Structure formats: C-alpha cells, structure tokens
C-alpha cells in the first residue's frame, strides 16, 4: 500500500512538474526553429530560421483565457445557438425566425462550428465580426511606421474613432436612423504634409450594401466619396492596408469564405489576460497599455528592424484556417489565408496573394483584452506588422499606449461636417 501511495505521489509530482514546465515561457528562435514550423505561417518560419524573428512563447490557462470575454458575452453566445443561419447568396447573417437580417446580435452568432460544414468559413467570419464588436466603440491615437532594412523611412501619427451599433454589450443604441452596423472617423495628425487628411466610413447593416467611405483632403477642402475596395490599397504608400485592422476590416459579405483546416498557431498578444480600464466619465473608460518598441527603435536590437522587441508575447492557440477571396474587380488582393482563434475569434495572421496568385504579404495582428467585471469586456487590435516579402519592407501600425471605450458619442459626430471641419 505504501509503495502504491509513493508511486501515486511520484506520478502526481511528475505530472505537476510537466504542467509547470508547460507553463514556463520559452523562446522560439533560429536555434530551435523546428519547434515553430507548424506554429507559424510558412513565410514567417523562413524569417525565424534566418534569425530575423524570435518569439517569447507563453502558455495561457485555457479556462482563464476563455474568461477574457465577459460572462454576459458567453451567456449571449449560448443563447444564440440555433437562432441564426446564412443567406445563401451573400453569406449575410439571417435570423431563422424571420428569414431576414436580425435586428440586433450580441455574442457569437454561431457557438458551434463544424469543420465539415460548407458554410463554416462564413460562420467563422461572422463570429469574428461579432466578437470584435463587443466593445461598442472607442478610439486611439496611433502611429504607422514604414520600415525597411535600413530602419524607419516614414512615420505617420493618426487617430481612429469608432461607434458600433451591432454586437455591443448592453443592447442596441436607441437611435440608428441610417441602419448602420458601425461607423468610424480616422485622420492623420503628423507630419504636417498629411495633417488633416481623413476618412469617414459608414457600414450598413444589410447584406448587399457597400460601405460608404468619404475622404477629405484639407488642401482641396473637398470630401469625396471613394470606393470601399480601397481597403486593399496601401495606406499612405506604406506596406499596410485598411483591411489589416483586426486582419480583416471589411463586411463579411465582401468575401467568399472557405474553411480549409485547423491547427495551433502563435497568437501575438500584449499579455494573455485582460487589462483593467478606468472610468473618466460615466460613458468613457481609459486603458493604458505598454508601448511595443521595434528593432529600429532599440540600440543593438537583434533581428529585422521591424520586429517587436518588448511587451509582446505569443500564446499557442487553436485556430481555424480560412480562405477569403473577394469578387470585386477593384479589390487588389487575391486569395487571403487567415488564422482565426477557434474560441475568441480573432485573426492572428494572414497571408495575402495578389490577383495573379503571387504571394506577397503577411500581416501579424496583435490584440489585448479589457475587462473589469463579468458584465463588460472588449478586445482591441493594438498591432499590425505588415511585411511585404516581395519588397522586403514592412509597416507597423497601432502600438498605442492609451485607448478608450466610449458608450455614448455625440449623435452628430460621425458626419461629413466633422470630417470637413477637423482642421478648422
């Protein structure tokens, strides 16, 4: 009996040690790159192998990670089971009870996704959209940095403000006269030659409508409507695209989605668990986050000049591998391969081909979670590292140190008037 107990104790101790070892952060770099070959997209593995990238890998407790989203969100997700379907033609979200677009959705609309389901890719895209919308709106001031092998060649400081009508905690907003899913204003603050260049985007809550996007250039004092396919145009000549926000910035209906696989991938996160927010008004909360310096900003940094040096960890996460392709002839991307978290529905990486089928670009999309209690949570995109492997250049987007959540914007804020008077 004593021997049996001793054996049990030894087995338990060994198990505990193994578990503890699993929890220990470790570094994936050129010396052990083989460990990462199935955990990263192939072009990234090439750079890992060459010593240009390395990864601080941190395990996260799956149960705790799940609770990065509020209990309110997960409860709503559970209640959504069986409520929604997809429009055959557009892949738009459909309320089974009415056969129409639902009035309001909160939580993941498809709590279970079957990998054999031909509509699986589209369902994943809807889960992604609704998970990203849970915060309801907010903003941040951030930078876009163009970086090549010689260091930074361009820096733009900009801001973005958003309001979401769908997917938000606490239910729908009272007024939504334009029938929107969301809207946003973004603008350049520095350098002076681009100061005031700004855009207003309105995304309609329907299956077939295109986004309405206006661009304003202060020197002409004109706001012009632009094609929403410009999401695949480089932003300010940099190797980064409007569609890189959250790794996909369009309406679900713009792509044909196809679920093609599943795997584990390294998810770039500021930290595995949520940040707390602090209230600065009854409707506004601030979140402070650490800056992520890149190689070009750190003396004697190792690796590629655009590689993040501090305050970024990589959590192994199970993901769906999904292909997306636009049929819009004005959209520059061909097949895009995206890696969606199977539970949190964030896209961590995407590989982009052009319309000729040539691979040219990989984006890494980093996030952080915000939660104070079980009634509210949000997930912020805080980093895009876009790497053009064809030109061997990159762009960094995000890396803000302060952001905010806003539950009640002035009703007239997201308007052409605001857009055209921003530099007054």
């Amino acid at each position, binding site marked *: 009996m004593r021997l049996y107990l001793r054996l049990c104790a030894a087995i338990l101790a060994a198990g505990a040690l193994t578990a503890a070892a699993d929890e220990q952060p470790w570094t994936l770099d050129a010396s052990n790159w083989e460990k990462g070959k199935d955990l990263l997209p192939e072009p990234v593995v090439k750079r890992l192998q060459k010593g240009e990238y390395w990864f601080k890998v941190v395990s996260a407790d799956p149960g705790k990670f799940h609770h990065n989203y509020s209990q309110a969100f997960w409860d709503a997700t559970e209640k959504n089971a069986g409520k929604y379907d997809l429009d055959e033609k557009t892949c738009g979200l459909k309320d089974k009870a009415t056969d129409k677009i639902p009035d309001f959705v909160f939580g993941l609309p498809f709590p279970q996704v079957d990998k054999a389901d031909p509509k699986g890719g589209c369902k994943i895209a809807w889960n992604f959209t609704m998970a990203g919308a849970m915060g309801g709106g907010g903003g941040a001031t951030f930078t876009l940095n163009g970086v090549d092998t010689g260091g930074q060649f361009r820096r733009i400081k900009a801001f973005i403000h958003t309001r979401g009508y769908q997917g938000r905690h606490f239910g729908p907003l009272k007024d939504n006269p334009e029938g929107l899913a969301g809207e946003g204003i973004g603008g350049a603050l520095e350098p002076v030659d681009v100061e005031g260049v700004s855009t207003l985007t309105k995304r309609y809550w329907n299956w077939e409508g295109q986004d309405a996007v206006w661009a304003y250039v202060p020197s002409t004092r004109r706001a012009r409507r632009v094609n929403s396919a410009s999401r695949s145009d480089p932003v300010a000549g940099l190797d980064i695209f409007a569609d890189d926000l959250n790794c996909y910035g369009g309406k679900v209906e713009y792509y044909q989605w196809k679920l093609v696989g599943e795997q584990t991938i390294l998810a770039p996160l500021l930290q595995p668990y949520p940040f707390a927010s602090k209230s600065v008004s009854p409707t506004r909360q601030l979140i402070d986050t650490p800056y992520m310096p890149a190689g070009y900003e750190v003396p004697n940094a190792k690796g590629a000049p655009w590689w993040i040096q501090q305050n970024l960890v990589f959590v192994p996460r199970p993901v769906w591998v999904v292909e997306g392709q636009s049929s819009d002839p004005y959209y520059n991307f061909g*097949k895009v391969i995206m890696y969606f978290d199977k539970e949190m529905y964030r896209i961590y990486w995407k590989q982009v*081909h052009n319309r000729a*089928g*040539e691979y040219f670009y990989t984006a890494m999309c980093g996030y952080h979670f915000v939660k104070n209690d079980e009634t509210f949570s949000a997930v912020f995109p805080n980093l895009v590292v876009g790497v053009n*492997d064809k030109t061997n250049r990159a762009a960094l987007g995000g890396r803000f140190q302060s952001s905010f959540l806003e539950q009640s914007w002035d009703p007239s804020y997201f308007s052409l008037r605001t857009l055209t008077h921003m530099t007054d």
Partner: protein
Amino acid sequence: MTARGTALLVALLATLAGYLWVVERRPAPAFPAEPAPLLAVPTAAVARVELVEGERRLTAVRGERGWTDAAGRPWSQDPVSDLLAALGALRPLATVDPDPATPGDYGLGPGGRRLELAAADGRPLLALELGERNPAWTGLYARRAGEPAVLLVGGVLAWELEKVRQAAPGGNP
C-alpha cells in the same frame, strides 16, 4: 492660281495625307498577349490528377461520386477542385530562364516533383515539373514537361498543393 501652283498644292495635300496615313493612323501597338493559364481547358475536363513527389504518388480520379484515390477511397472534394481552379486561373508570372544550363538550380530535373492532369480518355491536359520557391517566396518555379523554359508561377499553387497533400485519403501512398 497657276496650274503649277495647283499641282504644288495637290502634291502638298498628298504628302500630308500620306503622313497622316502612315504615322497617325498606324495601328496602335498591340499589348503583349497575356500568357495562357497553366490549365487551358475547363476544369470539368480533368478526370485524373497525379502528384508525384519522390516515392510518394498522390492520385485523384474523378468518379460519379466525386474524387477518389487509385484504391477507390474518397478524397474530400475541395482540395482537388481548388487545385484545378487555381491551375485554370494561374498564368505564368514570368519566364525566368528560357533554357537553363542547370535546371537543378530551380529544383527542376530528374527525380523532381511532377503534376500531371489527364482527361477521361487518358489524353494529357497538363504536365508540370514543379521546382523550388523563389528566394522572395512569392512564387515557385515550374516548367511544362518537354519544354526547357523555367516559369515563375504564383505561390498560391504551393498552397493548393499543400492542401492536397494534407487531404490525401489515408495517407494515399
């Protein structure tokens, strides 16, 4: 006006008309013809796909119930169809080397990877030698069987081939 003057004017007019005809009305230079897609027939015409990589041979045969391997085991439909769709859309991006002295530099040559497509009557529809990825990883080298020219083909082909490998029924030896 004298007859001589009239003749001069007519000659001048003829010269100008000739100039317009020869210089201004010359047909605009044609754009270089777009290269043909790798698979120049409709994908529905393909009845057999073979991917040979060293000792490994993956076979997909189109049947009434979809694609099966040589032993009759079903393939999941999509990867084979996706590969054919990609081959039907992809056009060579460039001819990298019209007649390489050492095809091995591109990962081509004896013992290399081969992709062969055939019609239901056994007629070959496409035979490609597949080489390495290019240094920028944007495409891969390939050449049509029997032709020396090394082509650069978009990297999406490598992605589709990987999907086929992953989906092979029971390892599809």
